[in-house]
């Protein structure tokens, strides 16, 4: 797990994930007005005592689609460690298997985040302690990533995937609805990111499919299909990744400042 500049909000968020009620009261007493860490959000369904009702039905947008908007986070580091899920067989090409073994054996010492380079998709959403916000609008769905203050755009205005794009860390994403599932296709990746911290590789041939489904107000699920013939002998699916909603809060600015963080990052 990477430790960047150790800020108070990071600690607080981590504590909140583990011991919700008690930590929240502590946080509220200390930081109630500090920086929107606790801010009541309009449109949140609530129980009679005013708490967000996380089992309320998933909200809908004006055009009748499920609304994925909200701040979401993983509740475990295991998905970032291994996108395939523990014990899963991943159909690696031989060269990719060798790379994976080396990365795995060195505990991901050389992963791109060491040099303040971004995670890619989907792993930027899987970082414990760093939530992401989905902002769903008619023409595009934006994912704001708290880690490194980055964004992804998922264009929903009918355009096709680009032909021969300039390679990018997050690629180029288009999305459409299949029933209640938001299906995102992404191509145009550079080969810099790892699929997970364990080091599953990908190449610029990666065609990623992410299927998001909001089960209810407080729960979102993601299934990922990796289709990268250069690195894998056939497409494979991730384990199902659950996200929980963080209600009544806001993202915190986060940046990687290389020189300052270098001692922390290389300590392994």
């Amino acid at each position, binding site marked *: 797990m990477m430790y960047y500049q150790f*800020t*108070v*909000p990071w600690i607080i968020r981590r504590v909140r994930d583990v011991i919700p009620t008690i930590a929240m009261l502590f946080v509220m007493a200390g930081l109630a*007005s*500090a*920086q*929107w860490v606790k*801010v009541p*959000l*309009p*449109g949140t369904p609530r129980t009679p005592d005013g708490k967000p009702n996380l089992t309320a039905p998933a909200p809908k947008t*004006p055009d009748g689609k499920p609304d994925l908007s909200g701040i979401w986070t993983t509740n475990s580091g295991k998905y970032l460690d291994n996108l395939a899920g523990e014990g899963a067989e991943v159909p690696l090409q031989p060269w990719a298997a060798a790379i994976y073994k080396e990365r795995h054996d060195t505990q991901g010492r050389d992963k791109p985040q060491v*040099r*303040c*380079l*971004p995670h890619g998709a989907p792993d930027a959403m899987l970082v414990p302690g760093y939530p992401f916000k989905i*902002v769903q*609008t008619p*023409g*595009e769905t*934006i994912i*704001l990533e708290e880690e*490194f*203050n*980055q*964004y992804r*755009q998922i*264009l929903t*205005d*009918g*355009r096709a995937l*680009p*032909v*021969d*794009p*300039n390679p*990018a*860390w*997050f690629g*180029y994403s288009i999305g459409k609805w299949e029933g209640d599932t938001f299906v995102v296709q992404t191509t*145009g990746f550079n080969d810099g990111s790892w699929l997970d911290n364990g080091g599953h590789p990908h190449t610029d041939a990666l065609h990623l499919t992410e299927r998001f489904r909001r089960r209810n107000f407080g729960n979102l699920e993601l299934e990922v299909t990796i289709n990268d013939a250069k690195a894998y002998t056939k497409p494979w699916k991730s384990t199902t990744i659950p996200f929980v909603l963080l209600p009544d809060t*806001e*993202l*915190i*600015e986060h*940046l990687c*400042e*290389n020189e300052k963080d270098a001692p922390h990052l290389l300590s392994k």
Partner: protein
Amino acid sequence: MRPRNATSYSAIAIVAGLLFFSATPLPAQWLGYRIPGVPRTADGKVNLSAPTPKASDGKPDLSGFWESDTAYFYDLAKDLKPGDLVMQPWAKALQAEREGKEHQDDPLSDCMPPGVPRINMSTDAMVHPFKIVQTPKLVVLLYETSANSTFRQVFLDGRPLPKDPQPTWLGYSIGRWESDTLVVETIGFNGRSWLDTAKGHPQSEAAHVTERFTRRDFGHLEINITIDDPKTYVKPWSAKVPVHLLPDSDLIETYCENEKDEAHKR
């Protein structure tokens, strides 16, 4: 990054100090895709003089892909008359020192965010656009900076500015409509970023920046910026920055790769 054709020696000297991810020719992705729902003239070109569109809640819709006039990246105060901008003595000394060094100590050249309002500004050597995505309670600004791609959020849900916030590069922004103008107020700065790049006008953590966004017509936006920073400036001062639409185009991802760009830093 997006190169452009205009050249200016001082601009290049400054931009040479900036980090950039890669200098590639105009890339193929989604540039030229005809975005649906956009007013067009008979020949299919975007009609930049069409009226300002309205959002679902009846407000002017600022959504679009924009580029500012570039002069204000270098000197935000360029249009001010003598006496409009009065620096505190420490700020005057610092600004004079910075001006001579061609933004050598500018955190932007170390890959830190440009700060507010400078993040809105494009440059002469490279196009640095931004996208506004407006929803009734939240306006998201997505930036293609000379450092990393990043975003700002402007909250229109009635929340007040935070008291005693943790200092940041891009601050905490709330917005409200005053007739057809979106008034954005931002506080909570860390005092490290520069207001502009050739002059190096300072900004302290006490700064309260107001950006008034008015969309004149489909293709034209204006940001009236007020800097209220009593630690740095004896009185508030304002700058008006014209911004134009970049039709049928989209953001390009930018990231600094610090070791690779080490050679560019001065």
